[in-house]
């Protein structure tokens, strides 16, 4: 309390008190003081929105003054963030006010990528695009169009592409990120965790974090829930080659050998079955395949795992017991981006199986069933049937049948364009995103772009990929537009609205307007019957018994959480698992049905030779992927990335903290950056923060800063899903 104030009063004794009489407390005076104009909160109004700085989409209240967004705050009613906003969300203002932003529709004048542009009118841009699209459609069929999106505001582009008749729409979210995790949960339990994971974090008592760096790969609501649990005393075991901020909150850090998580998890499964630590009641009532599983994991002893992953056998046994002791309020926490090894599906399955053995489904502190707020889609004519299969093979039998056909496999799509196989792809439409920085194959992307007849890029800011476009369409940022509704599945069901905080700046337009106007030119107007996004969402809301006007005053409408439906098994109600068998399948039947090896078995991964390191990368809490490095406010927090290297390894190479080093993989791909010598990483592993090393000079702030991990990450594939095994790169480090 303030009363504990040290009565010694002054910092240093000095001569100034010489003339003081009585020590009249100056601060008690009621003097009139003038704050600076900047220190006033002028008159303003608030509009509701949801964030677009990452994929989590927090609810926002945007303060608007003089017709301009001036401050972003959280909407306390929104379950995704409960009022808090991260640094990225706060810096969203600079996405709109960035001087480097794309401001006008531009036509390429010189060579692709030569950087010669001419401002053209929107009409001219649409006319040129329509002419090129119709010509190529005629020549090659509609499947010659590929649409590569980016994960957030791309919905109208998907619609446009599907109306055009192509199946080839893709975003990085599946093949470069969460794919294996979601497929694994789908195969085992028929229930993916979704983009906003359905974990009852606050009530969980024990977290086994499998490299889930939840404090730095940060999503407000999720992180806050986890921090609440830890503050309430939940135990954390953090498994990661690197000591992250999340590790600093854990009671235990296990610096596992990279790529061997699967071995560790298999041994845990074995111990849990061997020692009958699992939830016998749940396993008996709800699962299939325990005996087969037991047989299959018999050879994965803790001692074997210790050899493979470097975690002591006794610790593995202990952790299995601790997990069981806290079940069902215990979680084996999957990483969000599970694209590391050639058997990520196996890792994902093991996590899902462990959670099943712990019986966490539909239990407090475990995995809950979300409520939804159904808002019907507008009535549209059916999309034309695409005769051709997807070019990336996602969902295509005999190719990658398990891959998600909505988001596809972005890397394979780039390869398909580069090789023009299985059929010519001559048109590319990108909506946000940056192929170079989110895939791992610069070469394939360059070759792909060379194959195109026409490349249209819609984006807010310049980046490496869109500098090759033939026409660049400047989009309004999320602060300047209506968008389709956000309907969510948390404990509460909700529908939230994005309202414009200001008119579109410069000569920009929102995605819905762009797609509608383009569709009109392409003769596809029937799929865009609404005059604007506002009209579209108003129609959807009316069908749900709401209205846009109502939502605009609140920002969000919620269906209250219902414990009986979120946690049916806590209330004597049954759980539902929509698998082929209707049960949780400990050995997934779908893999068998597809004639695939069932991925349960451990697949040995690459190991560094002398002088080599495992290459890893990850995130910090104040940058989103490769999207925000040019944001002046966020760049101020971290302007370039560094190569984390253990002091033992560094001293062998004569590298000191701050030295410039070159990192090269076995294919002679190279990047240079500064070294950070730290004990916070294993000696056989190096690490860098993702998203730096931008080489587009139009990005004034980010250009040439740090190194591009995308140019070093492996191009290997997971054998079951076609997702990218980014962690399989081995690199050498050399002092420059």
């Amino acid at each position: 309390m303030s009363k504990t104030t040290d009565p010694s009063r002054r910092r240093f004794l000095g001569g100034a008190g010489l003339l003081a009489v009585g020590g009249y407390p100056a601060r008690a005076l009621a003097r009139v003081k003038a704050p600076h104009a900047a220190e006033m909160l002028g008159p303003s109004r608030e509009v509701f929105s949801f964030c677009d700085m990452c994929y989590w989409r927090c609810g926002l209240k945007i303060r608007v003054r003089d017709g301009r967004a001036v401050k972003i705050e959280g909407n306390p009613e929104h379950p995704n963030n409960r009022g808090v906003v991260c640094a990225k969300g706060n810096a969203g203002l600079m996405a709109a006010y960035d001087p480097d932003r794309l401001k006008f529709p531009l036509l390429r004048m010189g060579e692709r990528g030569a950087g010669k542009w001419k401002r053209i009118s929107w009409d001219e841009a649409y006319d040129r695009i329509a002419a090129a699209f119709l010509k190529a459609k005629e020549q090659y069929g509609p499947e010659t169009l590929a649409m590569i999106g980016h994960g957030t505001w791309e919905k109208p582009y998907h619609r446009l592409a599907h109306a055009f008749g192509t199946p080839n729409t893709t975003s990085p979210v599946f093949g470069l990120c969460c794919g294996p995790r979601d497929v694994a949960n789908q195969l085992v339990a028929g229930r993916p965790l979704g983009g906003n994971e359905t974990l009852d974090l606050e009530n969980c008592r024990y977290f086994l974090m499998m490299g889930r760096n939840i404090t730095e790969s940060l999503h407000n609501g999720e992180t806050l829930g986890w921090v609440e649990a830890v503050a309430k005393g939940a135990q954390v075991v953090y498994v990661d080659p690197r000591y992250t901020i999340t590790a600093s909150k854990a009671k235990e850090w296990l610096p596992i050998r990279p790529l061997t998580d699967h071995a560790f998890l298999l041994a845990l499964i074995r111990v849990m079955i061997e020692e009958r630590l699992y939830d016998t009641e749940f396993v008996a009532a709800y699962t299939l395949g325990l005996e087969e599983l037991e047989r299959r994991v018999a050879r994965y002893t803790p001692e074997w795992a210790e050899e493979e992953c470097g975690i002591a056998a006794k610790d593995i046994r202990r952790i299995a017991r601790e997990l069981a002791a806290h079940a069902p309020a215990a979680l084996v926490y999957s990483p969000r981006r599970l694209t590391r090894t050639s058997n990520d599906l196996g890792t994902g399955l093991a996590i899902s199986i462990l959670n099943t053995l712990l019986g966490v489904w539909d239990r407090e502190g475990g995995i809950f069933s979300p409520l939804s707020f159904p808002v019907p889609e507008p009535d549209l004519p059916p999309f034309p049937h695409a005769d051709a299969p997807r070019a990336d093979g996602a969902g295509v039998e005999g190719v990658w049948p398990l891959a998600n056909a909505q988001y596809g496999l972005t890397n394979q799509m780039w390869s398909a364009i580069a090789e023009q196989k299985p059929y010519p792809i001559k048109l590319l439409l990108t909506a946000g995103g940056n192929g170079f920085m989110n895939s791992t194959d610069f070469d394939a992307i360059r070759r792909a772009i060379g194959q195109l007849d026409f490349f249209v890029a819609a984006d807010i800011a310049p980046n490496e990929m869109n500098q090759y476009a033939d026409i660049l369409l400047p989009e309004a940022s999320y602060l300047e537009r209506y968008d389709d509704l956000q309907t969510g599945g948390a404990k509460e069901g909700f529908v939230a609205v994005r309202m414009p905080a200001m008119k579109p700046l410069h000569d920009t337009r929102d995605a819905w307007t762009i797609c509608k106007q383009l569709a009109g030119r392409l003769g596809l107007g029937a799929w865009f019957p609404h005059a604007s996004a506002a009209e579209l969402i108003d129609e959807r809301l009316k069908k749900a018994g709401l209205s846009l006007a109502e939502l605009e005053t609140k920002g969000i409408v919620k269906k209250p959480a219902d414990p009986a439906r979120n946690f049916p098994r806590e209330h004597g109600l049954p759980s539902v698992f929509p698998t082929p068998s209707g049960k949780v399948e400990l050995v997934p039947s779908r893999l068998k049905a597809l004639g695939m090896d069932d991925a349960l078995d451990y697949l040995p991964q690459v190991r560094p030779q002398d002088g080599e390191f495992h290459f890893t990368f990850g995130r910090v809490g104040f940058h989103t992927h490769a999207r925000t490095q040019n944001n002046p406010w966020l760049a101020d927090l971290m302007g370039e990335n560094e190569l984390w290297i253990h002091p033992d390894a560094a001293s062998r190479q004569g590298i000191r903290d701050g030295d410039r080093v070159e990192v090269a993989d076995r294919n002679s791909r190279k990047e240079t950056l500064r070294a950070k010598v730290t004990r916070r990483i294993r000696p056989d592993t190096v690490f860098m923060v993702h998203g730096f090393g931008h080489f587009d000079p139009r990005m004034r702030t980010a250009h040439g800063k740090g190194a591009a991990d995308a140019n070093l990450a492996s191009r290997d594939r997971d054998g079951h899903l076609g997702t990218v095994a980014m962690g399989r790169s081995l690199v050498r480090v050399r002092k420059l």
Partner: protein
Amino acid sequence: MAEHDIRMKLHLLCAGLFAEPEAEHLEHVLRPLAAELGQTDGPWQEGVRALPFPEGGRETAQLGLEYNRLFVLAKGHVPVQPYGGYWLDGKSTLYGPSLRTVERIMAAEGLEPAQASGLAPDHVVCELELMAHLASQGGKKAPLEKTLLFNHLARWTPDFCRAVMENTREEFYCAAAKLLEETVARDEARLAAHMGRTAGDADEEEQA
């Protein structure tokens, strides 16, 4: 010509020079304007006469490319940002706080950037046209002129003009930048002499 008329036309000409070059506009608006000013005695005469207008479609197209390279988008970053706020608000933001000054004057005059132009109110073209509009009223809008000049144009166009001269490969933009620089400097001297200049004065008006 009356003095205010000349000032109006000079600002209009400068605005036009920094607009996207279109043959129509160059031939039928800017060239006659320059010719008229070039025949009127005054310190601007030399600068106006020195303007190398493009001859023919090829040269105009060439100029268009240079315009886009300089002010719109280039391989490197945009070499010269044509927005006042960029220069006044720390070069890391557009639509920053300095824009309010211009918007307030525009609102007082019932003006705003044309919808189709897609230009921010503090784009060099908008500010100069606003100045021309104010000047055309023969000194009646002197306080607003003063605010626009001392809080905006005179504070950023010198840097802007220098950047244009350093970055352009076209004689045309060099001459245009020089003309703009001189025009603003003369305005500054003139307004300072007429009304007395302190930063404080301008600020007060700004706040009022």
